[in-house]
């Protein structure tokens, strides 16, 4: 019996050892244990892209016939730092830090990289390896005009390198294929500042030939780089060496001047902490850049909130809105003489609407839309620049919008229309620039978000965290509500080869989606998806 018990015990021990060994086998990817969220979702031409940082991937939802949804997974570089859609919505750019494997690390080495995702008949990803970088640069600016340049720059925040050069910019030409594209680093000639904003100009007629510029605003100076040759740089200190103040730029505006002239392109600068505006005229110079900025500093009597170059019947002016004075000040960039125009409200923002509300493209004088007033009844106003000379007080025409306008949203393919988002957010308006009428639409809640149809026929209004989604026809301002069962995070209308669809994203769990046909908005044909981020495989 003793032998038998020993045998039994040995048998049990062997079986238990085998069972324990099996139970410990085959760990799944750790990504499965990471929660999913749809906080970073973008509507692109052809689909919706959801960034899934724990999985180092982008999940692309491509709507198709009968509101079907094709789900594709695009692997990007490890440790995502920055994600931005291209300005025209053609691409999604994902900047990743990569991974540096210490001794004993089973995860392979990976260089910092930029993945460019395009959605067409198929989802295509171009992977640019930034081999010249060891530590990642988390800031990214994308050329909004040609979508050619991606410029990386140091950003603040956690997980930044131990030592970084705040004035280092890395230029990547996205027109080049990943195999041949080279990231070119350039350090700005700093006077002590660090870059805070990058602006890509349109093509300007400059001495030495037409070209595009990159204007870099730092916290105390300004740099102008030739995009064709980023090493070709001019840096301008905004603060005089005899002045203890540090002037900080707040925004710039650019004007090409007379198309026939190559010596009158200008850059206007407003300041955060001074009542002056600065005009830089790019004049011929025998140096390497071919031009030299001539600086004019003009006091406008208060800190300006917005600036723009405008054409008046008196010639080109730099218009500055000065809310403290309830006025706009027109600065002659040649003589620096100023003309103050009293405004009926403390408008803080302006945009030119000459194309549709004035004499059309190429008109001799501009029309500006003024908005973002201080009081609830300030609404918007049209400012006819052609009447400024001699009759400045009669050049302002207000529109009966009885709410302070906080944002003016352009309507794609309807240049004459704007959607006015109000500060109260309990109503919004559809403004017709040609007829100068504003149709109000009232919402039942003050927590309202907007998104625009890419073809411009409807504006989407929804309550984040609620279940209300409404499509308002932009022409006849007729609202139509959708039937939504789950709380809404985002509403994104996309156009694909199969038609137009609106994808409503729902937070929670693995992320949900409701897909409607955006043309019919038929509840019966909508389709409801769950756990769109749950599917693997994961690396």
């Amino acid at each position, binding site marked *: *019996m003793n*032998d*038998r*018990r020993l*045998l*039994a015990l*040995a*048998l*049990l021990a*062997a*079986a*238990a*050892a*085998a*069972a324990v*060994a*099996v*139970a*410990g*086998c*085959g*760990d*799944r*990817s750790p*990504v*499965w*244990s*990471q*929660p*999913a969220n749809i906080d970073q979702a973008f509507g692109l031409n052809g689909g919706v892209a959801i960034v899934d940082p724990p999985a180092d991937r982008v999940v692309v939802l491509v709507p198709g016939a009968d509101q*079907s*949804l094709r*789900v594709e997974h695009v692997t990007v570089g490890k440790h995502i730092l920055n994600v931005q859609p291209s300005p025209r919505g053609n691409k999604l750019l994902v900047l990743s830090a990569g991974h540096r494997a210490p001794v004993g690390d089973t995860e392979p080495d990976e260089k910092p990289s930029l993945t460019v995702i395009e959605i067409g008949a198929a989802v295509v990803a171009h992977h640019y390896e930034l081999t010249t970088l060891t530590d990642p640069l988390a800031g990214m600016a994308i050329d909004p005009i040609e979508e050619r340049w991606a410029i990386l720059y140091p950003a603040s925040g956690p997980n930044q390198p131990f030592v970084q050069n705040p004035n280092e910019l890395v230029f990547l030409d996205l027109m080049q294929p990943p195999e041949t594209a080279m990231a070119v680093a350039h350090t700005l000639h700093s006077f002590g500042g660090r870059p805070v904003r990058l602006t890509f100009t349109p093509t300007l007629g400059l001495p030495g030939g037409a070209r595009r510029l990159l204007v870099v605003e730092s916290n105390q100076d300004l740099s102008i780089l030739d995009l064709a040759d980023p090493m070709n740089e001019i840096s301008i200190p905004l603060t005089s060496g005899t002045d203890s103040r540090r002037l900080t730029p707040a925004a710039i505006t650019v004007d090409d001047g007379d198309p026939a002239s190559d010596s009158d392109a200008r850059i206007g600068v407003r300041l955060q902490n001074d009542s002056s505006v600065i005009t830089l005229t790019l004049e011929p110079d025998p140096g390497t850049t071919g031009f030299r900025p001539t600086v004019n500093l003009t006091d406008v009597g208060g800190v300006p909130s917005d600036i723009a170059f405008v054409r008046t019947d008196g010639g080109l002016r730099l218009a500055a809105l000065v809310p403290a004075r309830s006025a706009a000040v027109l600065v002659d960039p040649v003589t620096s003489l100023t003309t103050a125009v009293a405004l009926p409200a403390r408008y803080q923002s302006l945009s030119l609407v000459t194309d549709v509300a004035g004499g059309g493209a190429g008109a001799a004088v501009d029309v500006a839309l003024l908005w973002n007033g201080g009081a609830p009844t300030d609404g918007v106003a049209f400012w006819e620049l052609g009447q400024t000379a001699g009759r400045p007080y009669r050049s302002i025409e207000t529109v009966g919008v009885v709410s302070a306008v906080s944002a003016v949203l352009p309507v794609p393919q309807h240049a004459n229309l704007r959607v006015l988002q109000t500060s109260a957010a309990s109503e919004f308006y559809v403004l017709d620039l040609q007829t100068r009428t504003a149709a109000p639409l009232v919402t039942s809640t003050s927590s309202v978000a907007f998104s625009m149809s890419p073809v411009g026929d409807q504006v989407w209004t929804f309550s984040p965290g609620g279940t209300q989604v409404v499509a308002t026809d932009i022409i006849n301002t007729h609202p139509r509500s959708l039937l939504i*069962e*789950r709380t809404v995070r985002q509403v994104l209308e996309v156009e694909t080869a199969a038609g137009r669809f609106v994808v409503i994203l*729902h*937070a*929670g*769990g*693995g*992320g*949900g989606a*409701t897909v409607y046909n955006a043309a019919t908005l038929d509840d*019966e044909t*909508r*389709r*409801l*998806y*769950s*756990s769109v*981020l*749950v*599917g*693997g*495989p994961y690396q």
Partner: protein
Amino acid sequence: MSLGNRSGLSLVAFGLLALAAPAPADAQVIEQSAGPKPEIIQGTVGVRTMLIRSSAFDPFSGTDAVPQVSLSIEHPLLRSGSFVVAAGFGTDFGASSSEARGVASSLSLWRLAAVVEGRYYARPFTYAFARLSPGMLRGDAALTDPSSPNAKDLVDHFDVFSIDPSVGSAIRMSGDSSPVGAWISAEAGYSWAQSHHLLLAPPSSPRDQSKIVPVDLGTIDPRGVFFRIAFAITY
């Protein structure tokens, strides 16, 4: 996987060595002449660990292992010397639960099968066996996802054909003279089952079914090696 296979081979080798081990000389004659005791029925309860390597199993478990409880009942049909052929029914039930990207998930597997077993009694108190067990495997997968359209769990059920070949050995723990025998067995084998494409959707009325799109978790292959330890009573 390699570790699991090595363990399985060790187990089988150990079982064969146990059967080949010489018994005490004085008992050898008596037991060889006695042969296996005739028994009417054998009831078994055991635990089994199954290794599923399918990637579609990942949402439901942090490892590839599924612990299961096994029950079976067998009756000897044929006897010839030290050889016995028995048949009966067996069932295995196991469940695994986890979180898949923050969504609570579970998968249960229930197997109901016929059992055909060939035994070789090297001694009256120990035998080796080879078993073939064809049957049906029922799987129930569920995700408790707050993004479900009607707030119900996303579920999928499947029934697939399954067959388990296995080998093992058993040792009698009770006295030889007792009419009731208590046995301990260890077994290793491969559980094969048909694949199934997991499409999980919340239960809904026929009217809503065209609107609710299931979650596609890929094709699961609910098969793999298994190990079982069991306690059996014979009468």
